[in-house]
């Protein structure tokens, strides 16, 4: 087999509390050994990577991506989306189920995860929590779990009905995976296309109130309490793309209470506020929307103080013609896989002093733990050889036209980034090299 030696790098492996110069030997898709610098002197490998000046970290993991296959491959395919992931330093992504058709059966899940789809990195999926994501009847949680599901979600919309959400949390608890909730009370957001507030008023756009997010989080947490009491189960609620201080505060309290709640924050929610909508820029339109500066600041704090468990991109590609129309008509979402690390390092590390090891943790070990991915998110000996090498000090600006994604819908075209991915290695194979 083709061994890979990574020499002279700074290994950051938060799960093992390592932040030091180490050399790594990758063999048969696993980390064969980790040594002090120079420890592999005399060892021959098919490939030797000189990582001088680079951070060597567990490959990044994104628990929230939209790859659009099947059904909307004009926006993205599993192959192109995962190529973008590799370029962004990700070695594992979790595909959302709102494809066409919705990923809600074992057959569809198996089709999606089949090697024939050409995934460049390790692909997992969260199938729909309800049939067709219609919110009425649960999917086959046990069968889907056995086929590889790492969670359940109706992402794009919430599981709105109390009884259905309760049943989903119970079934997911038995299957030992989270229910990943898109927290939006859609009864409050009909016809809305940005954050509610003075800016939406001025632009004449109907605004999504922060309550729409907080209410569903509150309801779901109440369900966790009830289920723990009544069923003796410990369900895991994962709150997707938290965007409001209100929701973060509710999550923080629930964690203190000991409930099993985790949450993710998307880079755009800590890097941008609603002002980015500007003159109706549809590249600043997503759901949940960009919020006020106070909310943005709170997202940064939540990442600094540990309330937020991980960073997830909500990579949501759309074709140019779909975004180049009236703001209210344009679909929600932006691409994010190639800008996540650069934004995290620029905003959280440089501007707010979050240590590199915490950023690596938020983007590898923590998402691995949320989705119970054994052997991933850490680089201890014997673990999966998923590695990212990046130059943490490199300043660059993102060029959307150079993206590996099929789509270009990003508000970060031309934006300053910090930290550049040099190589991405997935299961011992080099899947990206700058």
């Amino acid at each position, binding site marked *: 087999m083709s061994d890979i030696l990574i020499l002279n790098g700074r290994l950051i492996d938060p799960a093992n509390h390592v932040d030091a110069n180490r050399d790594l030997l990758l063999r048969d898709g696993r980390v064969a050994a980790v040594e002090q610098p120079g420890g592999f002197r005399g060892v021959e490998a098919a490939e030797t990577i000189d990582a001088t000046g680079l951070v060597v970290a567990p490959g990044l993991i994104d628990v929230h991506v939209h790859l659009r296959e099947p059904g909307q491959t004009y926006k993205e395919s599993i192959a192109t989306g995962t190529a973008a992931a590799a370029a962004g330093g990700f070695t594992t992504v979790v595909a959302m189920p709102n494809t066409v058709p919705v990923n809600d059966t074992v057959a569809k899940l198996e089709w999606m995860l089949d090697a024939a789809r050409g995934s460049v990195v390790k692909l997992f999926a969260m199938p729909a929590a309800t049939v067709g994501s219609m919110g009425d009847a649960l999917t086959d949680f046990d069968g889907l779990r056995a086929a590889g599901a790492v969670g359940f979600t109706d992402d794009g919309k919430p599981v709105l009905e109390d009884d259905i959400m309760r049943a989903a949390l119970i079934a997911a608890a038995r299957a030992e995976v989270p229910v990943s909730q898109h927290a939006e009370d859609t009864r409050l957001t*009909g*016809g809305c296309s940005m954050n*509610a*507030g*003075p*800016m*939406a*008023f*001025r*632009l*004449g*756009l*109907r*605004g999504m109130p922060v309550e729409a997010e907080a209410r569903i989080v509150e309801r779901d947490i109440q369900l966790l309490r009830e289920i723990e009491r009544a069923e003796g189960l410990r369900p895991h609620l994962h709150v997707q793309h938290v965007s409001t201080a209100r929701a973060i505060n509710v999550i923080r309290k629930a964690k203190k209470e000991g409930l099993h709640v985790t949450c993710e924050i998307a880079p755009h929610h800590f890097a*941008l*506020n609603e*002002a*980015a909508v*500007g*003159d*109706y820029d549809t590249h600043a339109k997503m759901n949940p929307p960009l919020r006020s*500066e106070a909310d*943005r600041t709170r997202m940064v704090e939540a990442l600094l103080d540990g309330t937020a468990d991980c960073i997830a991109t909500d990579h949501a590609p759309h074709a140019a*013609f779909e975004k*180049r*129309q*009236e*703001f*209210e*008509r344009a679909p929600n979402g932006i691409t994010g896989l190639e800008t996540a690390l650069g934004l995290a390092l620029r905003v959280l590390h440089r501007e707010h002093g979050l240590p590199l090891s915490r950023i690596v943790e938020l983007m590898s070990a923590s998402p691995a733990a949320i989705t119970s991915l054994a052997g991933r998110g850490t680089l201890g000996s014997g673990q999966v050889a998923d590695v990212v090498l990046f130059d943490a000090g490199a300043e660059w600006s993102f060029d959307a036209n150079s993206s590996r994604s099929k789509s270009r819908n990003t508000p970060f075209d031309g934006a300053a980034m910090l930290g550049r991915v040099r190589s991405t290695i997935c299961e011992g194979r080099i899947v990206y090299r700058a």
Partner: protein
Amino acid sequence: MQSVSESATAQSPYAQGSLLSVAHLSVEEVSAILGEAARLEVLAPAERSGILRGRTAALLFYESSTRTRTSFELAAKSLGATTTLVSDKSSSIEKGESLKDTGLTLRALGAECIILRHPASGAPFVLARETGLPVLNAGDGMHEHPSQALLDLRTILTRLFGADSASSVGEHTLDGVTIAITGDILHSRVARSNAMLLPRLGARVLLCGPTKLLPEDALGLGPGVEIVHDFDRALAQCQVAMMLRIQKERLAGLELDLGDYIHRYQLNGERLAAFAPSALVMHPGPMIRGMEIADDVADGPQSAIEEQVRHGLAVRSALMARALGGSKGLRI
């Protein structure tokens, strides 16, 4: 971090002569437009009709309109321009053609300027970006109606200070003038444009209406804007009472007790006499008589409603000339 940038001097990605938002106009530009309107109004018809001879403007209307459409059309024609009207009901828009493609088609057919009315807020920005043509916003969703605010300004200046004072403005022209805008503020593009324009000329703008139709967020329109929910109190302070229609088509499930609304917010003769006996009464139209305004007021001596329509023709002529570069002194 990104910040809101509304300065009129900021580099604009939109073709010169576009008018998408009153926020894009400097006070000097507002003044120049008023000056041009005054100049064009008194030109001999023969001279006026030479100004845009050979030029082509398209009116693209996705919503119905009487005043705005007709006055833009008549303004363009009086300056000698050729106009073509495209409406969503009788074009390929019905077949699903996008705004971008519709704009590019009009451009390919020779349109040098597009006047757009559209139900989606911000649609004129899309059209201006995609076509590169000057675009005049003739009302976009709940966002803005800039030409209405300019004609309202000209009406106010003429009635308060005389016709001679309506051809230029500065930052203090409306010092001491209070304008009460009353009604369905939430859904009103006229309210937004006026509330963003008039305070920059020194005016105080009182927004008035029930809480459901007037959220606190309206204060974000800018300094000089205040919220007063009590109509009588607002009337008692104003020199200009601008009334707005309840936009039933945009209520989107909002419940409103119309009887109560009439009781609290209708401008009728009794109320006007009691609280604002000398105020100027304005309405951008369409009026719903018996709802927000009573007959006696609409047709009474304090009403400037018909004059507003006439000023619309003059202001829109100036905007057409500005968009197509047919006016002197406006292009720098």
